[in-house]
């Protein structure tokens, strides 16, 4: 509606001068103004959609950073800890009774291990910086907390004399999942992700590249290759949860591989990544000009020599870029992993691809469903870690492309 209105008003306003131009200028185009307005509107729409998309991203990132930053700090308190046989046996007795509701259960639980590591602690009482529980930690960070007044007074006293402070949270990077919020970390998920992705790449990269080389360099255009091509493109669009079902049926039920292991997870994600690698590798091979191949044949090289020594090195940056993008997609995937049991409570870091493991997005998913408030910041911090790894992977892809790219 507004479009027509502005049109008619501008026409009437300019009508007198227009007449003049019309007579003066033989190239006068009466629809010019309308077309310019259209172009401006179109540009406005494109800019608006970019702004819209960016504001979403900024909002999301801002929200994550504001929520997640506190997780990189953790509260510690300076109190006397008594180490002797009695307290090793019943660790609650190692600290004054009034601190029992303040100190973290997970810290007390570790006392026997600490004494075992450092036997000189035995039969001494030492002022130690101990980890406090998540309620006190939430109080220190200015979040909602639930502490009984009796204990809150102790906490405030300690804070006033500087014996309660926030420190960098090393636990977040050195521990696995935990049901005690202050004891939980992302280490086992990071290791699980790395092991899973190693398996994924070992399977998907060579298979994908070889398939692409065959389809691009060796195969003749026939009914069968076309069928394969359609299927590969189709596979790239399949919902990832179906790969999980396939993984369950084939790798776990048929081959009897261990449930929840990075081996099964990696193989399943490899199936999912394979089409992406094939498609991008084929595009990279296709962009190598035919003159290179013909020059090779002209010198009497065999097909394999041409592909291996001339086409592949030139196509490699493109293949790497596609593979890294496929890898980062596999890294953020959770849906297929639910089915094969990788979304579970697995606090121990896996030491081989046969042990149970969880991955980073799964860890974030688990934390997001926890009732304790302290997990909100951990969820956001986990997202920050995952995003920064993804960004560095993608930056690596861009760097590789720029560095080795050849312009024809």
């Amino acid at each position, binding site marked *: 509606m507004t479009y027509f209105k502005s049109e008619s008003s501008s026409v009437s306003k300019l009508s007198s001068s227009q007449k003049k131009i019309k007579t003066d200028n033989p190239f006068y185009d009466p629809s010019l103004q309308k077309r310019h307005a259209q172009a401006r509107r179109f540009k406005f729409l494109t800019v608006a959609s970019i702004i819209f998309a960016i504001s979403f991203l900024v909002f999301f990132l801002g929200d994550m950073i504001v929520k997640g930053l506190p997780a990189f700090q953790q509260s510690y308190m300076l109190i006397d800890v008594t180490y002797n046989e009695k307290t090793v046996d019943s660790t609650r007795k190692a600290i004054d009774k009034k601190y029992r509701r303040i100190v973290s259960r997970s810290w007390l639980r570790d006392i026997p291990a600490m004494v075992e590591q450092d036997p000189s602690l035995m039969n001494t009482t030492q002022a130690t910086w101990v980890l406090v529980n998540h309620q006190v930690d939430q109080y220190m960070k200015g979040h909602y907390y639930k502490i009984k007044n009796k204990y809150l007074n102790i906490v405030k006293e300690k804070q006033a004399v500087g014996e309660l402070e926030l420190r960098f949270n090393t636990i977040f990077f050195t521990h696995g999942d935990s049901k005690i919020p202050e004891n939980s970390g992302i280490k086992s998920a990071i290791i699980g992700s790395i092991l899973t992705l190693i398996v994924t790449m070992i399977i998907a990269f060579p298979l994908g590249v070889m398939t692409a080389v065959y389809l691009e360099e060796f195969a003749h255009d026939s009914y069968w290759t076309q069928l394969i091509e359609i299927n590969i493109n189709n596979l790239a669009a399949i919902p990832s949860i179906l790969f999980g079902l396939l993984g369950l049926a084939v790798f776990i039920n048929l081959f*009897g591989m261990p449930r929840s292991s990075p081996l099964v997870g990696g193989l399943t994600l490899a199936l999912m990544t394979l089409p992406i690698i094939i498609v991008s590798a084929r595009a990279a091979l296709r962009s190598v000009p035919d003159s290179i191949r013909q020059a090779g044949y002209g010198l009497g090289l065999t097909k394999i020599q041409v592909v291996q020594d001339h086409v592949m090195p030139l196509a490699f940056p493109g293949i790497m870029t596609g593979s890294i993008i496929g890898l980062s997609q596999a890294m953020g995937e959770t849906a297929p992993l639910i089915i094969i049991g990788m979304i*579970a409570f697995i*606090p121990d870091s896996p030491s081989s691809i*046969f042990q149970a493991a969880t991955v980073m997005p799964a860890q974030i998913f688990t934390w997001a469903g926890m009732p304790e408030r302290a997990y909100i910041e951990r969820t956001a911090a986990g997202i920050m870690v995952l995003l920064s790894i993804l960004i560095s992977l993608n930056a690596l892809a861009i760097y590789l492309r720029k560095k080795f790219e050849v312009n024809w």
Partner: protein
Amino acid sequence: MMLQKSALSLIATTAIMASTINMVQARDQIRIVGSSTVYPFSSSVAEEFGATTKHSTPVVESTGSGGGMKLFCKGNGMDTPDITNASRRMKTKEFKLCEKNGVTDITESVIGFDGIAIAQNKQNKALALTKMHLLLAVAEEVPSKDGKSLVKNSYKRWNEIDASLPDREITIYGPPTSSGTRDAFEDMIMKGQTKKMDVYTSLYKKDKVKNKGYKKYHKVRQDGVYIPSGENDNLIVQKLSKNPAAIGIFGYSFLIENDDKISAATVNGFKPTPETISSGKYPISRSLFFYTKNSHRKEVPAMDKYVALFMKEDMIGPDGILSEIGLIALPDERRSAIRASVEKHTKLTLDDLSKK
């Protein structure tokens, strides 16, 4: 190319290794599956077990009660789970499936209660509901004004159901059909009442095949008043804090963690507290279970110790660790009876399940 050669050999070794691991018999790591409601409790115990013993931490998977039973009853092989958690009792159908697959020696443990909270934004005035109010608010078909026939639910405001209730729009955020909390809500609020109401059951008696659904009517209305809100209870809490008119249905542990934002409505005169739930005065609560596969006890030596740790007073007692995250302890007597039965590895029989 070198790269491809090494990659191929790696594939080969992986395949060989994969085929050998199947033969491993004894297992140090316990495998637990089952209900998402029991999952936080089970994994808390698992963590404690991993941290205080030399055994590795059990793997706890949250598959839902039904999904857990399916995996558990698949057989006695070492690749099947050792323990399954459930937020309801094992069904006779599931027991028969277990039996068919050779899983006959099962021990049942009850660990406590879980309350289902009906809550609203804290700014609101206290809300006193009854089970009947809730039924009339969520059912697809409700008794007409004269109580003689069923009509489509047209209640849009609470005071239309009962004049004593506030003049507020009915908006209910609750669990989706896949959730165990939804099952429990339907069982206790809907089926429990409709099976005793002639207006529903008379329809069933008239035509037992066609009107099968009216025997224990539990159809939830789909006109946007009841909003299924995903498995994540945190989401429902967030929605309640943004929408003061709404009420939400979720697990008790989410209520105690968020009592700055939301408050519970009373149901039949009682607020959900550990005492009212444990004594059964608060009407919407359910027992939580886990089932152990005794045929695995030899090959998975850690199992007995894990179960013993779980049943300890430090864990499931009224002041135990699990009470801090929302588990409601069984009454003392029942607790010691269950503990004794678990210690003896009492075999579960079909009779146990069929009697109520």
